[in-house]
């Protein structure tokens, strides 16, 4: 009885740690540029397919992984400088920029279908999901452990970057008040561009660890993207710790719902929880409302 609960809880934590990586990327971009990046999942899809091609051609996993991170980060940075900055100069508002991310999503989907085809493929992954370990009454697969480790390492590295480095200080300053940051000599455009790169790379990590559990097709990140988005809203769209907390709650909740209610109810319950939380706390669990000073 207890084992069953722990088992599904653990499965949920494993899924939740990937949602956390997706959510962190979304929040990072939202709190610095106030843009919701609808291409977040698709950038990860593209980069994961890059890994697929490299692994199929017998490159080692670390090489493929690194290449994917670079591709994902580069797409994020290029989109920021090549499209968003230009749009902003032309006076695009936030909604316009959000629509632009939607456009990027569609373009990437097209590219992926064109280059890799729409047939699902499986990513040759060095970590197995059939090798399992037993802790008491709970069984954990190697993949699931690796997934949790990836989520943890990704979150901790981001925390250290934001809280403990120069760049992080500049990122925090820029996200809180662009004009003040600029008048203190911070090249805010560059900082925002790097934020886009870091955020996209986090999404790529999620994509690569998700792919072996699912099949890789041009739309495989859609569901994780929506979950990550929901987790971010649940935790508070401008709070990085909130994104992690929201993601873990969401992962565990949907896993338990699948176990104890019915599997069809898995997604529904997750979103019901979000609706309830938002009715009670519209700013999310850990979010703070932005105070606009005029």
């Amino acid at each position: 009885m207890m084992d069953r609960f722990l088992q599904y809880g653990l499965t949920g934590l494993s899924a939740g740690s990937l949602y956390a990586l997706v959510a962190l990327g979304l929040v990072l971009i939202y709190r610095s540029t106030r843009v919701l990046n609808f291409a977040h999942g698709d950038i990860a899809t593209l980069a994961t397919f890059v890994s697929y091609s490299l692994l199929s051609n017998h490159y080692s996993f670390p090489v493929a992984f690194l290449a994917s991170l670079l591709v994902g980060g580069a797409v994020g940075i290029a989109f920021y400088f090549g499209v968003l900055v230009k749009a902003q100069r032309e006076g695009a508002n936030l909604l316009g920029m959000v629509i632009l991310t939607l456009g990027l999503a569609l373009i990437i989907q097209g590219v992926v279908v064109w280059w890799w085809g729409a047939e699902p493929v499986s990513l040759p992954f060095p970590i197995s999901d059939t090798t399992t370990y037993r802790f008491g009454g709970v069984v954990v697969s190697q993949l699931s452990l690796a997934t949790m480790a990836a989520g943890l390492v990704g979150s901790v590295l981001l925390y250290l970057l934001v809280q403990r480095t120069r760049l992080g200080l500049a990122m925090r300053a820029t996200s809180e008040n662009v004009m003040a940051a600029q008048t203190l000599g911070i090249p805010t455009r560059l900082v925002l561009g790097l934020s886009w790169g870091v955020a996209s790379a986090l999404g790529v990590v999620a994509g690569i660890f998700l792919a072996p559990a699912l099949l890789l097709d041009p739309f495989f990140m859609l569901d994780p993207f929506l979950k990550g988005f929901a987790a971010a809203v649940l935790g508070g769209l401008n709070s990085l710790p909130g994104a992690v907390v929201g993601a873990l709650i969401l992962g565990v909740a949907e896993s338990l719902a699948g176990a104890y209610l019915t599997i069809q109810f898995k997604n529904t319950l997750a979103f019901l929880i979000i609706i309830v939380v938002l009715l009670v706390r519209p700013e999310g669990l850990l979010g703070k409302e932005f105070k606009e000073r005029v």
Partner: protein
Amino acid sequence: MEALLEVRELSLRFGGITALSQIGLAVAEGETLAVIGPNGSGKTSLFNCITSIYRPTSGAISFRGEPLTRHSPDEVTRLGIARTFQNLRLFHNMSVLDNLMVGRHLHFRKNLLAAVLRLRGEETRHRRRCEEIVEFLNLEPVRKTRAGDCPYGVQKRVELGRALATEPRLLLLDEPVSGLTQEEKEEFAYWIHEIRGRFGITILLVEHDLRVASRLAGRMVALDHGVKIAEGTPAAVQRHPDVIKAYLGE
């Protein structure tokens, strides 16, 4: 004598509204110049032009002989101009000390690797500089406090400290004593005076409070409706009939 900052025939128009019209002024190294004028006279617009937040419609601004109008705001700061805002723009969710550390940003190594690795020696050097400012502005009791939780008077000090942390040659202060109690105004005036003496920084300040402005500044420029109406010693400018008319009406 060569001016540190020179503004020539500066005009700024938004659509049909003229915010500044043919403004000319020069700030000499080491002096404190006050720009006065009633609300809406263009004082803050002038600051925003100097710091490249606004692009002037016409005219030129030069700093240490170099034209400023093509630079972005962060480049202007890097050249040695710092400012405070009339409505504070602090980083509310950061500690007071972190706010000052942001001001140190442009003195960190340009090298990205060094930035990520956070070199110890450098860190200590910057901390020391910030502690100096903390001590100078009496911020010791609040150094770890979230800036947003500090009282207004303290927040004004933090913003002044943050501007000082960039080690500017020229400091622009936008209504530094507005919203303060009489006692706080006195204190603040003392600090502004000390900044010139202790750090050797040239100051251009915009002030609504004529008493404070005339105490601090060696020279004054008066604006009204975006036009320069008087320039000279504080006493002369305040006696100028156009200035009296601008402040008191007809």
